[in-house]
């Protein structure tokens, strides 16, 4: 059981207890003293077990505070990483090359040790996240600065190292942010290697969205397959794959010059616009059926971006601006009505 599963169990117990009290108050259901006592003892034992092993939110107020602490962790990690970078830049000119390299090698290793130490006393994992992000920042500095000191030519292999480290530490400590970052870096590495294998300059892989579109779709499928061994990060795979795929489709739908296809500009743009609408529509449907909440949000956001981009291309140049925004506003109102209808249907079929 991981933290999210433990939190879900605690939430279910809370909801059950509240509903039971309401039913008893309304006279629908009544437990005798023995049953009530047995139930309370059983729940107390489970809650005690869960809260001993995990740092869980017992109510909405605690949940909101946890979100705030998570945001503070990320800001703290960014600030601490900046501090490490700036300290290194401040002192590295005073050191011999061997000392510079030793410091750069030691920094991420110290970060890993710090992360492990934090995981032992911090059940909430906020300090674990900070330590892991600082360790990752130290590794980024390690690879880029050693490359700089020895005037090495840039290579996509640096992305592979960063990706492997982020995934390793993300999986080890159950940190979704690190896993998501590792997956994005893995896509960038594979795209760079693919472009290089075709004779291109790897750092121009960003100008071939079709390459990373393919990788992102593979990731999306990998996250959607139920038998994924590490199911606890399946939604992270899906969300990263979907986000990257939507960005690639959107870029291709507005700039055909970035496509490797030897089609006309119109054909390329139309193909990827249709692809964008099909993907967002499919994801919204899939998300509604399988309780993939982030998929529904990302799909809806992508659909709106594709739709408004199309409106802009069709009408902005010749239509009065006030009329353009009137149509955009009316479409938004229309979409709210459609989504309300879809939600009502989903409730009926649930």
């Amino acid at each position: 059981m991981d933290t999210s599963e433990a939190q879900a169990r605690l939430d279910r117990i809370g909801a059950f207890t509240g509903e039971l009290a309401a039913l008893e108050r309304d006279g629908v259901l009544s437990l005798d003293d023995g049953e009530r006592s047995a139930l309370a003892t059983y729940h107390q034992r489970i809650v005690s077990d869960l809260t001993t092993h995990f740092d869980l939110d017992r109510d909405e107020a605690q949940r909101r505070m946890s979100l705030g602490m998570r945001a503070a962790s990320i800001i703290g990690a960014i600030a601490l990483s900046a501090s490490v970078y700036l300290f290194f830049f401040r002192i590295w000119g005073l050191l011999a090359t061997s000392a510079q390299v030793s410091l750069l090698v030691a920094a991420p290793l110290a970060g890993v040790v710090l992360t492990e130490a934090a995981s032992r006393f911090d059940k909430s994992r906020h300090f674990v996240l900070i330590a892991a992000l600082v360790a990752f920042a130290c590794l980024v500095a390690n690879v880029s600065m050693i490359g700089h000191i020895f005037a090495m030519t840039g290579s996509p292999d640096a992305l592979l190292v960063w990706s492997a480290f982020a995934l390793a530490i993300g999986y080890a400590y159950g940190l979704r942010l690190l896993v998501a970052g590792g997956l994005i870096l893995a896509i960038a590495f594979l795209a760079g290697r693919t472009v290089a294998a075709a004779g291109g300059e790897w750092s121009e892989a960003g100008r071939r969205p079709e390459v990373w579109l393919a990788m992102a779709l593979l990731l999306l499928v990998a996250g959607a397959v139920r038998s994924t061994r590490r199911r606890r990060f399946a939604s992270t795979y899906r969300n990263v794959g979907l986000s990257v795929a939507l960005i690639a489709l959107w870029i291709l739908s507005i700039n055909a010059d970035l496509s490797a296809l030897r089609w006309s500009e119109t054909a390329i743009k139309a193909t990827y616009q249709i692809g964008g609408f099909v993907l967002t529509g499919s994801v919204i449907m899939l998300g509604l059926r399988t309780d993939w909440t982030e998929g529904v949000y990302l799909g809806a956001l992508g659909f709106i971006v594709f739709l408004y981009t199309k409106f802009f291309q069709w009408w902005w140049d010749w239509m009065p601006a006030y009329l353009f925004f009137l149509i955009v506003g009316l479409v938004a109102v229309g979409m709210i009505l459609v989504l309300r209808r879809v939600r009502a249907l989903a409730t009926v079929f649930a």
Partner: protein
Amino acid sequence: MMRRVLVPVLVVAIADAVMLLSAAANRAGQPDARVTLTSRQLVSAPVSARNSARELRWMNGVDALHGVLFGRLDAGTLTALGFDSRPGTRQLGRRVFAALEVDGARLQIVDAALAAETLRRSHPDRGRYIVARAVAYGDGRIRALLPELVVPRAFVHMLDRPPYTVTLAFGRHYEPWIVAIDPVDTPAVRQ
């Protein structure tokens, strides 16, 4: 616990070992080129309170934004580099090798090829021609990938007394390092 720590530690260890071995391999044996440049071609980067290291930047014909040396290629060379000459093709830049001629105050790209050996055969003078990695574009542009050079502590004091000459070696991986920084004997000003 060991497994949690072991994998990230191994990633760091392997990555650093590969990088340091690669740097050592680049500098092992006879360098591919050994050239002397002036303090006009390799200028000292501005000193900053936040960055205590001293670095040298390539200046001759260099794009200040990207810190790289640009040149132009003819249609024949572009075809040899694998570019499709048909109009309307959408091609990415290609990673190639460039030959740079060091001739007094001049430093310019004079040739390009897919293989470094091809360039070295055409330009065998290792004291005059550098072979470096470069990126060529379908419109004829080419930029040599010449990174800023971190100056080892032993040479830092020379940067405050220009003019100077910088002797660079380019190794097996066509990556440069500073061999020496020497003062230039400036002639006495005549009255």
